[in-house]
């Protein structure tokens, strides 16, 4: 394909076939935001049901389906894709690269995630959603649940494959595609956190793949992994799930930490405090993430030695996390803190996350966990952690990088109103849940009887949810209201890292010339030690770009078809789906595709605009 041909594609075809990391990032954000909204509506439905005791608004079965899908959607289809959106868009820009290492696989990863996500959600219309919780403990999930679990297990398998591909892509991108001069220890912290999170993805998702494989085998092919009468063991599932599931928590948290590590220095006008310590703390958290999973299983009956070992290992995570918190505080110390909305998110993250963190240590106390486990205390804890870190990180990142990604700045007043409303709602909703748990309220209950001392706090909790929803609405409104605030400088926040050296809107080749990095915080260094312009590592020339491809959609569609065949035990359909997959892979492997070049004249034309 030539440059001229590449320009001629229709908008729709362009987005369907794109391998541009920026467009894929935006698609991740859009799809993630869609699922986030759905998951949020489910949360509201649940809080509506639990607002009053003995409520019959939602039947118990439906409630179980909603609670399962809320967790599943929020973790797999909202939080991770939204983070992937930022990683995709920002990481190549931060390391001074034109694209990711595997543009084709990047696109494949996105479409796999989307088709998998759609597949899981189709269960609503085809016989009922999964109802065994996002953890889907067997045998409830294997032999006591309906067809929804088939959709669950296959859909998440497909989207998990996409995540794994994405993880490998980020790893190779970060290792191989850094601009000259950017050593590992000069990388921005968001990139570092993405790197460690990607390692976690690489090692955590295969365990989940095996877990889902076994569950699928039991449900669809009649194997006996979890059939006790045939010698199966149901604890195997819990191990496999949590070997994945605990690192997953850090897969969600680390990129958010990375976002805060960009926002806080930028708006404090100060270099991050203890960069090296931050990097090693990140790696340590990643390592511990794999060594503590059984703290989700304290009550399963592994025995006191196992419980003690995992309890102590879990407590140890508090140390590197504490290091990070103090480093953020000390970064702000002595700085000049400009309280933009992004910074407000980062500032509110610290107390919220610390509260989630300390309850985490409390949960690590194994003997006390016998009281906490599976109660609303746990619900409160992980919402403090996930909303406190991941969701605030996502919102902070959105306000911070919005001008970079969409060429306009979000309204600050509306933004602050949104975040304050959202946080008031959040603490109202979840703070009381700590006490609900200690007062004896188990989690995942479809309703509760009156007179158990829970009524008042559930009412408070449900009212809080309304504030959160109202806040989120303000955010959506902000997106549309702010469209007129065009951003043309490319560097609205006096940024420190390479992504702010690019003109706005971001050209498709990112950097006209590959930048030369001379220090950590490369842009800041040039601003205050150099002439404010980033040095180029190469002469201006034609830029090589990869061709788009429709094959990722076809491969994902093939797996989608295959999954249908498996759910309905129609092997011919499953076979046909597999044939589509291998056919498309065959085409990909046989067709050599060397991309096209953007001529230097086009690039100078763009540069003139700056």
């Amino acid at each position: 394909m030539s440059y001229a041909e590449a320009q001629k594609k229709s908008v729709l075809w362009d987005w369907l076939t794109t391998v541009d990391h920026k467009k894929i990032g935006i698609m991740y954000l859009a799809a993630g935001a869609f699922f986030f909204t759905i998951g949020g509506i489910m949360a509201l439905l649940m809080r509506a049901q639990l607002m009053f005791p003995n409520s019959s608004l939602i039947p118990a079965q439906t409630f179980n389906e909603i609670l399962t899908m809320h967790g599943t959607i929020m973790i797999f289809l909202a939080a991770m894709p939204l983070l992937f959106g930022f990683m995709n868009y920002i990481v190549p820009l931060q390391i001074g690269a034109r694209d990711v290492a595997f543009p084709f696989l990047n696109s494949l990863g996105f479409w796999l995630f989307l088709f998998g996500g759609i597949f899981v959600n189709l269960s609503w219309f085809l016989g009922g959603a999964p109802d065994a919780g996002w953890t889907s403990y067997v045998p409830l999930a294997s032999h006591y649940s309906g067809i929804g679990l088939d959709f669950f297990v296959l859909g998440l398998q497909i989207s998990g494959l996409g995540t794994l591909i994405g993880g490998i892509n980020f790893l190779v991108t970060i290792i191989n595609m850094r601009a000259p001069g950017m050593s590992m220890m000069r990388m921005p912290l968001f990139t570092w956190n993405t790197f460690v999170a990607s390692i976690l993805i690489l090692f955590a998702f295969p365990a989940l793949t095996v877990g889902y494989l076994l569950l699928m085998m039991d449900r669809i092919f009649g194997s006996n992994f979890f059939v006790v009468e045939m010698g199966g063991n149901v604890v195997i599932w819990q191990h496999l799930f949590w070997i994945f599931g605990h690192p997953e928590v850090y897969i969600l948290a680390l990129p958010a930490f990375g976002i805060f590590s960009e926002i806080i220095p930028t708006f404090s006008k100060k270099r991050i405090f203890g960069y090296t310590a931050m990097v090693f703390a990140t790696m340590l958290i990643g390592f511990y993430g794999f060594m503590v999973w059984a703290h989700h299983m304290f009550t399963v009956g592994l025995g006191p030695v196992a419980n003690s070992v995992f309890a102590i290992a879990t407590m140890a995570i508090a140390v590197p996390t504490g290091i990070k918190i103090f480093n953020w505080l000390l970064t702000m110390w002595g700085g000049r803190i400009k309280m933009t909305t992004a910074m407000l998110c980062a500032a509110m993250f610290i107390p919220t996350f610390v509260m989630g963190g300390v309850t985490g240590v409390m949960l690590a106390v194994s003997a006390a966990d016998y009281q906490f486990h599976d109660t609303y205390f746990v619900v409160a804890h992980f919402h403090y952690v996930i909303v406190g870190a991941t969701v605030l990180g996502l919102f902070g990142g959105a306000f911070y990088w919005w001008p970079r990604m969409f060429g306009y700045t979000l309204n600050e007043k509306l933004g602050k109103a949104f975040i304050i409303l959202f946080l008031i709602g959040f603490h109202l909703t979840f703070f009381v849940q700590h006490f609900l748990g200690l007062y004896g309220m188990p989690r995942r209950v479809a309703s509760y009887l009156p007179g158990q001392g829970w009524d008042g706090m559930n009412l408070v909790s449900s009212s809080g949810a309304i504030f959160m929803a109202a806040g989120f609405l303000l955010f959506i409104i902000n997106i549309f209201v702010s469209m007129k605030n065009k951003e043309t400088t490319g560097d609205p926040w006096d940024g420190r890292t390479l992504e702010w050296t690019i003109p706005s809107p971001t050209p498709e080749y990112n950097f006209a010339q590959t930048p030369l990095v001379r220090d950590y915080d490369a842009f800041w260094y040039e601003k205050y030690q150099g002439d404010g312009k980033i040095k180029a590592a190469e002469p201006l020339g034609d830029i090589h770009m990869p061709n788009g491809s429709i094959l990722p959609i076809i491969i994902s569609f093939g797996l989608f078809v295959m999954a249908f065949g498996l759910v309905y035990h129609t092997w011919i359909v499953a076979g046909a789906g597999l044939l589509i997959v291998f056919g498309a892979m065959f085409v990909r492997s046989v067709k050599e595709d060397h991309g096209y070049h953007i001529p230097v004249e086009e690039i100078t034309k763009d540069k003139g605009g700056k």
Partner: protein
Amino acid sequence: MAENHTVEQHSLPPNPEKATLEGKNKYMGFWFFLGGEVVLFASLFGTYLGLRNSTAGGPGPSDLFHLDLVFIMTMLLLTSSLTSVFAIISMKRGNYKGLLAWMWVTVLLGLGFLGFEIYEFWDYTVNYELGFTTSAFSSAFYTLVGTHGAHVTFGIGWIIVLLIRYAKTGLTLTNAPKFYTATLYWHFIDVVWVFIFTVVYLMGIGG
């Protein structure tokens, strides 16, 4: 990373699989993928080890496994690892025909291995009445060894596609990394088999 692109078009670099950025990316990405596969197989091994005594009254490891068959399979796979090494050495020598020939030998050895494995599964199913659904042990056994077998099958298919696609092109900077990663995959299959014959078969017979 820029210096590799100054490579003359007609010269033969010492490591043609890593001579371009694409090749380097592919090489490294594939290694990382193998890292993920380590965890995948570890999970399957763990499951098998957890369930290997759960025969639910059906046949167990010591009733089933035959050392001679496993030994032959092991030798086939081990030798195929060596032939794929020779294929890469031929590639680096600029002997493209040698590369193709050694790869074909690898494929044949792989097919031999696969044939024995299919025979083995057939034997267990028919003569020992060990179906996939007989017991937790049988499910775990077939899933672990079957996943390895599926990897062998995929590897054979992959190499054959490469051999046919590039039968006439000669060695290029695009196909060198493809051949190289295929042999990495093949070695990895061998590495997993070392654990399978030890943990599943030998430990199964030995106690």
